[in-house]
């Protein structure tokens, strides 16, 4: 059985890494996690984002959740806020698409145009 004492160990081990971290503003990833998002599969998408970001040791990227973003029919929705404050909204996400967004947008700075809300709305017309 695990005991809370092990947390103390983790604290010591991660403290040095945290101190090394740069203070620059990083990328913020926000997942819509209201009823609509959860029912559409936002949990697996968020898990994939966290896992992919952890795997690549991306230190200045945070993943958070929010309520209903407003376009429930396009859930799961993921918003990526770049360091300069600009926002890209990705819709109808899956764990596979989430891994792609991390690799292409977050790591390499190339927006996945075909997954954005703009592309989805153009396709509907």
């Amino acid at each position, binding site marked *: 059985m695990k005991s809370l004492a092990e947390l103390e160990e*983790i604290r010591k081990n991660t403290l040095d890494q945290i101190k090394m971290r740069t203070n620059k503003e990083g990328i913020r990833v926000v997942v819509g996690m209201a009823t609509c998002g959860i029912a559409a599969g936002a949990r697996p998408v968020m898990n994939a984002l966290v896992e992919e970001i952890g795997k690549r040791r991306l230190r200045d990227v*945070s993943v958070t959740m929010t309520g209903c973003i407003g376009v429930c029919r396009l859930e799961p929705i993921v918003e990526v806020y770049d360091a300069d404050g600009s926002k890209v909204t990705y819709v109808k996400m899956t764990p596979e698409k989430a891994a792609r967004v991390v690799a292409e947008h977050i790591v390499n700075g190339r927006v996945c145009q075909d997954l954005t809300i703009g592309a989805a709305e153009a396709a509907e017309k």
Partner: protein
Amino acid sequence: MREIALHVLDIMQNSVAAGSSRIEAILTADYDTGTLTVMIGDDGCGMDKEMLEKVTDPFTTTRTTRRVGLGIPLLKASCERSGGSFQISSEKGSGTTVTAVFGIDHIDRPVLGDLAGVVTDMSAAFPSMDITLRLVNGAKQFSYSSSQTMRILGEVPISEPAVVKWLKEYINEGIKDIFGGVLSEITG
């Protein structure tokens, strides 16, 4: 929703929207009545009587009350489908408690799902709140509190990947210990 954990996440988001500083989830397995009771309580803004009567009906929801939406009706339907019941009590200004009862061995009871992940992610996402989880099965109990965890961690946030990984394993061990063999999907 396919998992009880997803319902818990959904109801907890209501608590966040209600400006709570404390959210508590208690899951109790009861052999005698054959039920699994999921209670989620918060100290948020609560609701008045009029609103409380409306929240279980998806179609009376107006735009100003939209944040409640379908979450509660879906949970209520899920409970009733498994031979259980649903109750919500609230007082304006002091908080809300949702009590969802499932038939533990009913074929339509949703599986528990990734409860450890939900509780860990909520703790990481809302560090200003105390998020607690209690699992009860007779005399056996398991407790987790995000504020206690944060006290131990000091300046290290819960959202650190190493902490997230450990917490999920820790809570999953608790789930296995308390509900193993009791909930058919969890082996003891």
